[in-house]
């Protein structure tokens, strides 16, 4: 007889494991796509355009865009991975197994979000190694950088999880990353310092939450950024907390999961 009383560790581990093995099946896609995208960005922005922009904030342009690129790929990969992770069982009908198993919110989240975040950490490492082939960047606060990457990965894995539950079709699944995340990321100071913008646009940019993520990570790399690291960390944590709140509500009400 199982000893499941308050927390089902084996259940959480089973979900986590299954999700990672799903990624393993598409190993080359998982690994190759970030390597390819990162390389392309470096060739276009780093080499072609960077040749004309010398430095931003005293950092070479190619090095300047590394943290932004990291966030760019991190957000889209994490969100997509996590949203597919929970959407697929809903789509195929295998969700019945999760709903009838002795697993609750915590186990489900640790499994799905943990796996999505793990994949993101691996992808981040790959991006950083790939970037190294193009540019000699430095990393001023490595531990804090890992911390921010983990925080962002967890937050957007949760965000993706919510999307995957909300979506009623593949189209809806793609629409938020495509229409919201990507534009916000591009406008979020990935490839430029928002100090380079005219005053009006600068103020508008400050409303974009992704500015704070990019700048938080940039600060970890080079010790300087457009906004303070404290604000960055605080906002990321806030976003994480909001996502946790929404997920808890989803489970309590069974929204879109239980009929």
């Amino acid at each position, binding site marked *: 007889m*199982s000893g499941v009383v*308050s927390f*089902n560790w084996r259940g959480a581990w*089973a*979900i986590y494991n299954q999700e990672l093995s799903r990624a393993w099946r598409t190993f080359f896609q998982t690994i190759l796509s970030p390597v390819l995208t990162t390389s392309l960005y470096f060739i276009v922005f780093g080499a072609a355009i960077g040749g004309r922009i010398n430095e931003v904030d005293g950092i070479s342009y190619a090095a300047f865009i590394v943290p932004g690129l990291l966030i760019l790929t991190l957000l889209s990969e994490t969100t997509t991975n996590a949203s597919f992770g929970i959407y697929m069982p809903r789509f195929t009908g295998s969700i019945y*197994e999760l709903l*009838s198993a*002795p697993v609750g919110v915590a186990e489900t989240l640790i499994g799905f979000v943990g796996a999505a975040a793990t994949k993101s950490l691996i992808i981040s490492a790959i991006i950083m190694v790939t970037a190294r082939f193009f540019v000699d960047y430095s990393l001023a606060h490595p531990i804090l950088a890992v911390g921010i990457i983990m925080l962002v990965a967890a937050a957007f894995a949760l965000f993706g999880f919510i999307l995957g539950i909300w979506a009623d079709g593949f189209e809806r699944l793609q629409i938020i990353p495509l229409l919201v995340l990507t534009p916000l990321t591009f406008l979020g100071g990935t490839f430029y310092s928002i100090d380079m913008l005219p005053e009006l646009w600068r103020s508008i940019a400050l409303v974009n939450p992704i500015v704070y993520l990019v700048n938080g990570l940039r600060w970890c790399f080079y010790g300087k950024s457009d906004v303070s690291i404290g604000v960055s960390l605080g906002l990321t944590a806030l976003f994480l907390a909001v996502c946790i709140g929404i997920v808890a509500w989803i489970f309590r009400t069974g929204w879109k999961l239980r*009929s």
Partner: protein
Amino acid sequence: MESILEIQGLTKTYPGGLTALDAVDLDVRRGEIFALLGPNGAGKTTLIGAVCGMVRPTGGSIRAFGLDMARDWRRARARIGLVPQELGFDILESVERSVRFSRGLAGLAPDPRKIESILRSLSLWDKRDAQIRMLSGGMKRRMLIAKALAHDPELIFLDEPTAGVDVELRRDMWRLIGGLREQGTTIILTTHYIEEAEEMADRVGVIDKGRILLVEDKDTLMARMGSKEAVFTLSEPLHALPPDLPGLSLSLGEAGRSLCYRGSGADADGELAELVQALVARGIRFSALDIHESTLEDIFVDLVENGG
């Protein structure tokens, strides 16, 4: 006998306003095979969903193993297995991994020997490394059963386990389900094949439009409600019923060429024997005798049409 599942006043109204379960009371005993019969849309799957966690009840209470499912769902669910009506898999997963996942989800330590024996008993062992998408329809159904058995449940729900399965495989499944019962597993199954309930069930429940119409021992039900009809094709037409035949329910057919007897319950066999002897004694000769015994199917159709 000890109850393993106690459902009281269970009601489910779907968001659209449809009441799929209407104050259902049901007790299932430990160790029995309970067959839930009902037409399409009766509420069978909704009932199973409410117990297992896919459906949020609007009212009522469910206790399994004496545990309140609303509070102690974690402990209770670890002891319940579910074979859903619809196929639903991660079709790219391998057979063995998929069953291993189910066991882990229930919170149990891996047990390769256990999984091997489950897969062997369902003739899936040879396919253990195959992806689920490569299985035939019947194999996929058995796969659902394998997943439901992975954690040795004490109570197992089978929602139309033999839908779309050929005769031979259906017999195999009956054997498997019989075997589970031998080991002490309680089984609740829904089916559209009445012969399945007739063959296997200890007790039968009939549900229609979200209401339980009756719950009864299968044998009692068949004896009480089962009727016997015997039609004698007469050699010489009769103009009237012989006046001195014992008080049986008899009628004459077209032009007095046949005699029809109707009886029900446990007495019918004796009455029929009596009738045959009486006919012979009176020199009323017949050239054929056609006996029809009602099945669960007849009882069921009757119940549903007449609303119990």
